[in-house]
C-alpha cells in the first residue's frame, strides 16, 4: 500500500514531458502543456495501477519524507502506458455556460408547429408523469395477541400515508386492550401529522395526537422518522399535552433476513416523561421500556403472520403507580400477529 502511494506521488512529481506520448492516437495536446494537476489524469489507464480517480487533495504530503524515496530503485519498466487514452483528456476543453446563441429562438420549439395551449397541457401532464408521483399506503405493522401470565391482551399499531416523495400526510393509530372482559379498549391514540423530508432517509413529522382512551387528551406532536444507519427504522417523537405535560417516545426496529421470506425483527420502544403525571399513571424520566423480537413469514411481501416475544417494563415512579394499582410493572408476553400493507 505505502509503496503504491509513494509511486503514485512520484509519478505526479515526474515531469510529464518525459513521457513519450507522440505515438498515441488521438492525443490532441502537446505533451509539455500537460499540467501537473492530478485531475487531468482522470481517464489514464496505467494498466494494473489505476490511480485515475484517487483524490490526492486529501492526502497530507507534508509528512512525507521525499528524501527517503530512492527513485533509482523504481522500476518504471513495469508501467504500462500503452493503455493511456489521451483523447479523453479534458484539460483543454473549458467548462462553462452554453454560448449566447444557444438561448436564441422560441422557448418551446414545438410551438412553431402545434397549438401552444395543448402543448402547455402536455407539459403539465409531463411534470406529473416524470417525478410528480403522488401515492400512499396503509401499513398495519403490528396486529397481535399478547399472551402473558394472568392477562392476555391485544394490540394494534398501524399507519397510513399519502403524498409525494418529499411531503406526506401521515395518520397513525396505536392501542391495546384485554382479550378477556369483552375486549374493551384500554389505551388508544391517533395522530395526524405532516411529514416532510429533511434528509435522504429522514422525515420530520409534526401534527396532533389525540388519546381516546383511557381519557381524552390532545397533544402537539413533533418528531422524526425514517431509516438510521445500519438499516434501523426509527420513529421518535415528543408530545406536549393540552395539560402542558411533555412526553416522548422512541421506537426502533431492524429487519434480519434469515431467508428471502423469513425475517426476524428485533424491536425496542422507550417512553419518557419530563414530569410526573399521576392522573395518567406516568412518572418522570424513563417511564416504560419494551424489547422484543418478531419472526415473520412473508407469504407475499404485503402479508406476513408472525410470532414473537416481548418484555415490557414500567420503570421508576411509573412502576410505583402500577404497583399501587395492583398491576405488575413488568412481564413477558408471547406474541401472535399479522403484519400487512396495501
Amino acid at each position, binding site marked *: 500500500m505505502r509503496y503504491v502511494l509513494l509511486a503514485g506521488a512520484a509519478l505526479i512529481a515526474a515531469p510529464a514531458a518525459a513521457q513519450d506520448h507522440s505515438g498515441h492516437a488521438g492525443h490532441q495536446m502537446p505533451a509539455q502543456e500537460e499540467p501537473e494537476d492530478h485531475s487531468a489524469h482522470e481517464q489514464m489507464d496505467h494498466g494494473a495501477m489505476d490511480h485515475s480517480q484517487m483524490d490526492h487533495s486529501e492526502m497530507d504530503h507534508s509528512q512525507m519524507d521525499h528524501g527517503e524515496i530512492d527513485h533509482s530503485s523504481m522500476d518504471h519498466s513495469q508501467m504500462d502506458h500503452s493503455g493511456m487514452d489521451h483523447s479523453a483528456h479534458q484539460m483543454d476543453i473549458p467548462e462553462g455556460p452554453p454560448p449566447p446563441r*444557444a438561448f436564441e429562438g422560441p422557448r418551446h420549439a414545438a410551438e412553431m408547429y402545434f397549438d401552444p395551449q395543448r*402543448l402547455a397541457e402536455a407539459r403539465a401532464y409531463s411534470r406529473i408523469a416524470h*417525478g410528480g408521483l403522488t401515492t400512499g399506503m396503509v401499513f398495519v405493522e403490528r396486529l397481535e395477541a399478547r399472551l402473558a401470565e394472568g392477562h392476555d391482551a391485544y394490540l394494534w399499531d398501524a399507519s397510513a400515508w399519502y403524498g409525494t416523495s418529499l411531503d406526506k400526510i401521515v395518520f397513525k393509530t396505536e392501542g391495546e386492550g384485554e382479550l378477556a372482559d369483552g375486549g374493551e379498549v384500554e389505551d388508544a391514540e391517533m395522530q395526524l401529522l405532516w411529514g416532510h423530508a429533511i434528509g435522504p432517509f429522514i422525515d420530520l413529522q409534526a401534527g396532533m395526537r389525540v388519546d381516546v382512551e383511557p381519557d381524552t387528551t390532545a397533544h402537539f406532536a413533533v418528531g422524526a422518522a425514517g431509516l438510521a*444507519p445500519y438499516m434501523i427504522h426509527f420513529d421518535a417523537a415528543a408530545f406536549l399535552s393540552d395539560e402542558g405535560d411533555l412526553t416522548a417516545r422512541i421506537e426502533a426496529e431492524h429487519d434480519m*433476513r434469515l431467508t428471502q421470506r423469513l425475517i426476524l425483527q428485533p424491536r425496542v420502544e422507550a417512553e419518557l416523561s419530563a414530569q410526573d403525571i399521576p392522573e395518567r399513571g406516568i412518572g418522570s424520566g424513563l417511564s416504560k421500556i419494551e424489547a422484543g423480537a418478531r419472526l415473520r413469514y412473508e407469504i407475499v411481501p404485503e402479508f406476513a403472520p408472525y410470532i414473537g416475544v416481548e418484555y415490557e417494563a414500567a420503570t421508576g415512579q411509573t412502576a410505583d403507580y402500577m404497583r399501587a394499582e395492583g398491576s405488575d410493572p413488568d412481564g413477558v408476553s408471547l406474541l401472535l400477529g399479522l403484519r400487512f400493507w396495501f
Partner: protein
Amino acid sequence: MTQPLSLSRRGFLGTGALAAAGLAVPAWARGQSLTHARNGFGEVSGNTIDLSIGNHHFTTGGRSGHAIAVNGTVPGPLIRLREGQDVTLNVTNNLEEDSSIHWHGLLLPFQFDGVPGVSFPGIRPGETFQYRFPIRQTGTYWWHSHSGLQEQAGHYGPIVIESAEPDPRYDRDYVVLLSEFTPRHPHEIARMLAVGEHYFNRQMMTVGSGEMSLEDRLMWGAMRMNPRDISDVTGATYTFLVNGHGPADDLEFLFNPGERVRLRVINGSAMTFFNVRIPGVPMQVIAADGQEVDPVEVDEFQIGVAETYDVIVQPGAGSHAFVAEAMDRSGMAVASLTSQAGQRAAPPPLREPVTLDMVDMGMGGMAHGSMDHGGMDHGSMGTGEGGMDHSMRDTSLLPPDVKVGPGIDMVASMPMDRMDFPGLGLDKVPHRVLRYTDLKARNANPHRMPTRSMEIHLTGNMERYMWSFDGKQFSAVTDDPIRFAYDERVRVKLVNDTMMAHPIHLHGHFFELVNGTGMMNQPLKHTLVVQPGSTATFDLTANEPGDWAFHCHLLYHMHAGMMQTVTVRPFPEEGEA
C-alpha cells in the same frame, strides 16, 4: 397467420414453417376473446404506414393480463424502411388516454420525435397523428410509446432500415427483440417501487449467505444501501420475452447449417439489462445502436435497456440455446437457434445472483486489487466523524449546479471511468465479453475537438424512489433545459452518483463514446450505460435543432424524474443546415 420472424430480404426463407414453430401454443388459440394480442409481430413497410394503438389481453406461459398492442400484436409490427425514402406514418390512438410513438434512434425533425410535452402535444384518444420524415440512416432501431408507462404494457416494436447497397456478410437476418411482460398494471409497479422496500427483489442478502464479510456488511448497512440492488423490477413479476414469446412458447430461429445469421438484438424492455449468449456459438458484433462498428468477436454481451447490437453468428448444425439472462439473474428469455425445426436446445441454468462492490459505490480509486485496505487510515480521508458513512454522501464533492437535497442518497467519492467494464456480473466470467472499449466506428467521424465540456450527475434516492439529473427531477426543470448551441461540439461527462447502472438516452442524435479509440473512430450511440458509481463520457455535435428528450431509459427511473429536455438552438437559416 403470417409471422415473418425471419426477415425475408434474401427471399429463401421457410416463413410458414417458422410461423408454425414460433406459435406452437399461441395463447390466442386457446379460445380467448378476439381482443387478445398476438405474441410476436408482423411487418409493415412502404412509404405510407398505418399503425393503430389499442387495449388487448396478452398471455405467455402462466401469466396473462392487460396489454397495449399496436396493430393487434405485442410487440407491435416490425417497421421496415429503406435509406433515402420518405415515410408517412399515420398513428391512430384507440386507447382511452393520450398516447404517442417515439422512433428510437432515428434522425428526424424534432416535431416528429414523439415525446408529449417536449416535441409535440401527444395523440388524444380517437385521434390520428401523421408523422412524416425522410430516412437518413440504416440499421436496427425500435419504436415505443413515450406516454406514461405504456411501453411496459406492450407498446413497442422493432425498426429495420435497409441500405441501398447489398450486404454480403450474412445469409439470414432475424430481429431479436427482448422485452418483459408483467400481469401487473405498470402504475401498480410504480407504486410498489415507491412504497415497498425492494418489493420485487427476491435475492436479498440473508444473514446466512456467506460471501460477504461482516465488515463489508456493516459498511453497506452504515450507508443504508443494499448490495443486491441490481434490478428494481425482476422475474418476480416479469416473464422475459424474445419477440413477444416467453420461455414456455419455445420460439425457434431456423437456419441451414453453414449459413451466417445476422441477429438484430434490441433491448425493448422497460427495466431489464440482459446478458446475451448462445453457448458454444461465438458472436461477431457488427453494429451498436444501429451504427456499424469494426467486427468484434465475443461469447457474451450485456445489453442495456434501449440499446441494440447486431451480431453475425455461424452456428453448427443442431439446436443452440439463445439465452438472454436478466442481469440480476432472476430469470431469462430463451429461444432456440436451430437447423432442425422442433428441436429445442436446453438453456443453461441461471447463474448466481450479482452483488455490488466498492467500485459500484463510487470508490473506484480505492478498489484496486493490490491495495491494502487494512492499512488505509479512513479517518484521514477528510470525512470527519463517522468515517465511511459520511464519505458516501459528501455533497461538497458535487458541482454547484447540483441541487443537494433528500433526492440524493449517495455521492460517488472517487468515480472512475468504466468504459472497459463488461457489465455487472460479467467481469469474472471465463469467456470473451463485449466492452465499450471494444467498439470502434467502422466509418470515420469528422475530426473536431469539443469546444466546451460539461458534467451531468445522475442522482437518486432508492428508499424514496426519486431519480434525477443533477438532483433535480424533471417535474422541477421542465422549463430549465440543458442547452446546446446549434452545431456546437460538447464533451459531456456523466457522473453516476448512484449504485445502479443507468442507460442514458439522448433523442434525435448520435453521440460518440469517448472510449479511447481515438477521435476519428469513437463509436456512435444513442444510449450509453453509465455503470454504478462511475463516469462515462461522450462527445456530442449538436446538429439537430429543436427540443429533445434526454433521460434514463429505465422506464420507472424516467417516471420518477430522471429526464431532462435538451434544446439545440438557434434553428439554422434555410440552406445552412
